């Protein structure tokens, strides 16, 4: 017969045990640390069946294309099954270090170029030099800028899948009504276009955002003016250099000259563009599919060169290998096969609006007739953030705040950018100390 007291005791013990396990689970988050030698990679995978977990942040119009590529890969590889886990990029960069530190990281993933050095310094991802060596991938098949930005402390941490940049979108109906026949390409023709648009009754033809992507516009202009946002030693931000001040002043002048309304809130410049309320907007090329779907009469062109040289902010999605608590050679080799295959077959990825990173893929006609074709021609003008650990957070905390204050008119461009640059330099010095450089 059941013994009520023992029954009760047993359950109390069970409850205590569950509690203890829960506590252990909460506190046992210590990392294992240490270097991790990557397994020898031979170029193909012939081992037993493995399942790879693959993390990425393609939640937008790019998601279905990535899924399609993964399915194709799975169909071609009998012994490898890739399972995607797609989450918002913002969550991705918080979750990945936590998961890897807890030994629960994925087997392979994709992240932005400017995050590679940060995660390499945090020991979240491991070098992929042996992979690129075996595949004989070199700078020759990529643009030099994007290839070099994947190197941190003389080791390579990412294999570029694509490059993407800002672009200029314009409403072709508005342009026709204003009698503009060609997309503006420099400061003079851009201003001329804005004036013609105003004359044609489009009161605010170019809305200057106060938040995203205003800091990317700022960086593009700074590069166009011949400046560098960060010095070579990664200890100083140059937002308040003459090139930087010129950049932010051009942005605020757009508002002062009446081409843009003031106080453009988050995303409203893009919504206004889609609604035909404004004629020109600068945004990422990843918006192409969204604009295609909206049915708006639009065209895309490279950013006009406002400064003295052609330049535009760009970034790149890179495959990476996370550090594993218990490395499994089979899985690592399979993951490398996956990366190699995705890189070689990246022409399909062009459908997402991105530009395949490999010259050979582009030369094979991946971009023929695609809306981003015109932008891809200027791929050599794309500028990427230097591989400085922690640079992403530095920009969010300083440059974005400074640009915001200046564009909203809360501070003069000089004041706002000087403050931003000082804060950024301070953070960069702190980062240097904490990353032990």
């Amino acid at each position, binding site marked *: 017969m059941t013994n009520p007291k023992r029954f*009760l005791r047993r359950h109390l013990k069970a409850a205590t045990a569950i509690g203890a396990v829960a*506590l252990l689970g909460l506190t046992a988050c210590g*990392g294992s640390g240490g270097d991790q030698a990557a397994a020898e990679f031979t170029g193909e995978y012939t081992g037993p069946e493995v399942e790879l977990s693959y993390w990425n942040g393609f939640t937008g119009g790019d998601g279905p294309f990535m899924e399609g590529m993964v399915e194709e890969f799975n169909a071609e590889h009998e012994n490898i099954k890739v399972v995607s886990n797609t989450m918002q990029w913002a969550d991705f960069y918080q979750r990945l*270090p936590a998961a890897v530190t807890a030994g629960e990281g994925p087997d392979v993933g994709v992240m932005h170029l400017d995050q590679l050095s940060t995660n390499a310094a945090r020991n979240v991802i491991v070098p992929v030099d042996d992979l690129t060596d075996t595949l004989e991938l070199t700078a020759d098949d990529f643009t030099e800028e994007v290839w070099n930005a994947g190197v941190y402390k003389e080791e390579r941490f990412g294999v570029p899948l694509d490059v993407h940049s800002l672009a200029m979108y314009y409403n072709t109906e508005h342009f026709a009504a204003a009698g503009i026949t060609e997309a503006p390409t420099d400061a003079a023709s851009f201003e001329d276009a804005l004036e013609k648009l105003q004359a044609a009754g489009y009161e605010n033809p170019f809305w200057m955002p106060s938040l995203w992507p205003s800091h990317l516009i700022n960086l593009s202009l700074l590069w166009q003016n011949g400046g560098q946002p960060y010095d070579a030693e990664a200890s100083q931000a140059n937002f308040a250099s003459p090139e930087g001040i010129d950049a932010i002043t051009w942005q605020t002048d757009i508002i002062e000259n009446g081409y843009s309304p003031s106080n453009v809130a988050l995303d409203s410049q893009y919504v206004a563009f889609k609604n035909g309320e404004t004629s020109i907007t600068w945004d990422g090329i990843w918006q192409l599919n969204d604009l295609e779907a909206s049915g708006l009469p639009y065209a895309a062109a490279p950013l006009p060169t406002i400064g003295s040289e052609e330049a535009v902010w760009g970034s790149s999605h890179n495959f990476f290998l996370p550090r594993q608590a218990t490395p499994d050679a089979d899985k690592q080799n399979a993951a490398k096969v996956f990366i190699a295959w995705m890189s070689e077959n990246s022409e399909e990825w062009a459908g997402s609006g991105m530009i395949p990173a490999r010259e050979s893929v582009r030369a094979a006609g991946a971009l023929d007739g695609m809306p981003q074709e015109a932008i891809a021609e200027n791929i050599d003008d794309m500028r990427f953030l230097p591989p400085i650990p922690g640079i992403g*957070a530095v920009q969010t905390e300083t440059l974005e705040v400074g640009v915001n204050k200046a564009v909203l008119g809360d501070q003069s461009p000089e004041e706002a950018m000087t403050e931003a640059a000082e804060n950024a330099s301070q953070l960069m010095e702190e980062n240097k100390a904490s990353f032990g450089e």
Partner: protein
Amino acid sequence: MTTLKEGGAPSEQRAPRQSRAKSSPREIRRQAPGTPWLFLAPYLILFIGFVLVPIVFGAWISLHTWDYTRPLKPFVGLQNYTELFQPDSAQFQNFWGSMQATGIFTLFSVPLLLTIPLGVALLMAKKFPGRNFFRAVYFAPYVLGVAVVAVLWRYLLDNNIGLVNYYLGLLGLPNDIAWTTSTPAAWVALVGVTVWWTLGFNAVIYLAALQDIPAELYEAARVDGANGWQQFVNVTLPGLRPVLSFVTIVTLIASVNMFGQSFLITQGGPGRETRTAIYQIADTGLRNFQMGSAAAMSYVLTVFLIGLSLVVFWLFREKKGS
């Protein structure tokens, strides 16, 4: 932990049989020591795991330069705390700026969240056709998540393409208020959205308390010739007092913990002006991986919150005594 008077295996088997046979009150009490723990267990485990341990662990973290992805987490003593009080440190300006933002928000949202729901509850307590419908309408926004509320209002409040300014313009009012990109308009927007979103919760609690006030008291007041206002002051308010202290504390804590609204509607802007303390803590700890500093900030915020709560308790206790 389950030691009983007799102890030992044999008695363990005998005791229940006895208790089943006799079932005297004393025998039942004999079984008792473990029972309350059993009933407590489900919550206790969660409480220990998600409240007590994090509190202690957080204090430990706050004494280190803590980046959980790095192998070295050097002990720095109280440095994370002293930095918060040194005007030339990196954290000083951001942290106290965010504390000020939290203060402004709390100052304006708490009084409104105490009075408007009371008004709504008084209306809803009256008998009129469609009463349940209106009760549901006022409570409805509360069931929405902060993301839904924020995205909804971000577009409604957009100063260039939003509906709010459009209708203000139709009414002949100024239609160029930058609700999300300038202060003080951003504070009006954030407080307004929060009141719209959460008033239903306070209203429901008020309503329950109103229904608990005996009708005889109102009757007696009316017999004594009290008018509506006098009934409210002398019957309704004293009847609500115990609930009022609860509602005040809960509202206060919720307001001090405001994060999602400014994170999603204003992104802390213009500049950093609407970055609240929790926003700053989340940013410091989760985005910049400075968990030590973020933990120290949390403790400073907690001290403030405890102080405020004590003041509220003291205020309500004082009135009770008189």
